[in-house]
């Protein structure tokens, strides 16, 4: 057993944390949040230069990491700083799908920071069901509607899932296509997100694309396992920030003549938050450390983590706001953004209940 980070990961963590602390203040982020494209190209490029994107890919894929703990380290730091740039959707999900489909040149471009992708998979009625694809492909033409597609407006290419055969919820028969941003018949209607960044409703009306794979479900399911684990790590980082801000606030804010942290009811609730932080950290370690195990074990650990982070995240976001009081409700205060990131993470890749059910099903299997 060994729970220490390797030297390389430790260095990546340190440099990333330093960069974000110095360059990604609340004020800076609040300014980025207001931008029409919902991101900063400068931050994207500089983080790419720091190796953030490269760490998400194996050496064979052109990166220098790609294992569970490489990805966990990166996303925990992004979460800690509340980064809204689309590293999850563009780089990790988009990039790893392309890597799995051997699009080596595009992956190289991604690692260099010069590419933006969007993955148009979820649909208005699919909720969290990964095999639910109604968008059809017929004679190479894509038709359908994709929902809450992250980073769609900024993307150079969209990766679109479509049903080549089978029923709407079948795992078999889902193909993946690469679609250029300016393809005919593609409509992108964008909007900002509560937790920062932008997404869009995407309509495909006879759009032509390049076939990436006919076994889309297998690719998606591996990449979404990675992404779910990364989301847990990101949320862990955000929870850590919320806990730290609250801890600091309890120590400095005075009421009735003394620091509010000396009020025992608050102190004990703070202790419960800290206990749940340990639980959450361990759950992420389990998810990251079992990524290369057989699918059932991998997915049990991922669902366990997503469920636990959902519960602990809710506790920490809500308790942090409550113990701060009104200040935490204001957009200007760091915690407001962080709490939104934590809560909205529950709406990605399956929520707390979804993963509880999945864990139960896998346990019974």
């Amino acid at each position, binding site marked *: 057993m060994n729970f220490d980070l390797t030297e390389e990961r430790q260095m990546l963590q340190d440099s990333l944390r330093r960069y974000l602390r110095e360059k990604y203040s609340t004020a800076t982020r609040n300014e980025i949040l207001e931008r029409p494209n919902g991101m900063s190209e400068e931050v994207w490029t500089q983080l790419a230069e720091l190796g953030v994107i490269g760490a998400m890919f194996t050496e064979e894929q052109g990166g220098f990491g790609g294992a569970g703990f490489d990805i966990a380290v990166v996303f925990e730091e992004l979460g800690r700083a509340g980064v809204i740039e689309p590293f999850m959707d563009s780089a990790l999900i988009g990039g790893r799908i392309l890597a799995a489909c051997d699009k080596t040149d595009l992956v190289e471009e991604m690692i260099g920071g010069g590419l933006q992708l969007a993955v148009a998979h979820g649909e208005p009625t699919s909720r969290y069901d990964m095999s639910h694809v109604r968008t059809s492909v017929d004679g190479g033409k894509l038709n359908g509607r994709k929902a809450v597609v992250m980073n769609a407006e900024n993307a150079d290419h969209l990766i679109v899932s479509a049903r080549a055969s089978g029923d709407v919820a079948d795992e078999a028969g889902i193909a993946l296509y690469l679609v250029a941003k300016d393809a005919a018949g593609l409509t992108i209607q964008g909007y900002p997100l509560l937790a920062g960044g932008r997404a869009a409703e995407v309509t495909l009306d006879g759009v032509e694309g390049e076939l990436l794979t006919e076994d889309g479900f297998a690719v998606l399911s591996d990449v979404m396992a990675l992404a779910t684990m990364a989301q847990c790590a990101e949320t862990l980082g955000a929870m850590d920030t919320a806990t730290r801000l609250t801890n600091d606030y309890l120590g400095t804010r005075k009421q009735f003549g003394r620091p509010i942290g000396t009020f025992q009811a608050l102190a004990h609730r703070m202790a419960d938050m800290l206990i749940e932080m340990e639980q959450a950290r361990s759950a992420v370690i389990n998810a990251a450390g079992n990524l290369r195990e057989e699918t059932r074990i991998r997915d049990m650990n991922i669902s366990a983590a997503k469920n636990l982070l959902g519960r602990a995240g809710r506790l920490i976001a809500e308790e942090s706001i409550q113990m701060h009081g009104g200040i*935490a409700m204001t957009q200007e205060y760091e915690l407001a953004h962080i709490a939104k990131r934590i809560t909205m993470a529950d709406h990605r890749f399956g929520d707390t209940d979804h993963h509880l059910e999945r864990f139960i099903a896998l346990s019974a299997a």
Partner: protein
Amino acid sequence: MDLSYTDEELAFRDEVRAFMRDELPKEMSDKIRLGDELGKEGQEKWHAILNSKGWLAPNWPKKFGGAEWNAVQRHIFEEEAAAHHAPRIVPFGLSMLAPVLQKFGSKEQQDYWLPRLLEGKDWWCQGYSEPGAGSDLASLKTRAVREGDHYIVNGQKTWTTLGQHANMIFCLVRTDPDVKQQEGISFLLIDMNTPGIEVRPIILLDGTHEVNEVFFDDVKVPVENLVGEENKGWTYAKYLLTHERTNIAGVGFSQAGLNTVKRIARAEMAGGKPLMANPHFAARVAQVEIDLKAMATSNMRIISAAAAGGAPGVEASMLKVKGTIIRQEINDLARRAVGPYAMPFASEAIEGSNEALPDPHEAGPVAAQYFNNRKLSIFGGSNEIQRGIIAKVMMGGGQ
């Protein structure tokens, strides 16, 4: 024991229902149902509708032009208003300031301000909270110094709800800094258009502009705007706070919210079945529904005692805590229910892409409401303050 309304109460409920059906404009109830903001004009319009029926001031004595309803009648009205998605009555002038004026104001103040309130001539806001005070209200620092016929006010108020619409503010100010905190406070009425007042918006985490900071820089307030006696303001403030607690349980809002959750969950599909048929989601809904049913009865018990002349004490604190827990849980269920569509930033998404979202009016505002309603357990005496009151009263062996 009889859990049903009397015939008189049922008749009153029918009258309220008919009023809501006939007089509440549909575009208004649509906005409320969908979590949109009504705006100043809409709010004033609703006030005028109520006033023409004589229902704008349910808790005022008849001699001041109020409806003088008892607690049960007020409850019935609030329940029906919530069920019909009627706007709330803006409480600052009508429910909070007015009782203070009626009890402690001079004849001149009563004669001038009370009719204007019914006629909608003034929009009042509340100047209580200050930066750094939080739940420790009495530590307020805004200073008022008497100079001839005026007070000169300097300081800052915060969390001033809808202050951006207001032309008047009632303020707690410190008139004697050398005595015990509670003993040097006075209650002033201040015209927002007086030079030296500046209102700055506070944007909340869901992007809304509900609250403000109000700055006072050598603001001149005529002495006739002092309510009651100088340095007795804390007494009036406490009196006001008991009136702030009307409808503290929020049963009607919770019931309306729960109906929304069920409507969404019957439409939303999860794993090939309606979400409402998912046992885990159904269990969450059932549990909060069970809690709400019980709280509604607790609320009626207290209202029934209040209508019979009893004074709700610690029970109000209990209702505040449980009521906010239930409402926040319902907000949480709503955001869960809509799945990935909780993520769009509602207000803008609705404006920009009405057509694009599958059912934007249901899904749109729920996550924003979840965040916005975290305030319920913070403002108006945080749940921590309420728990302290409950424990103190009970361990003291009585109220």
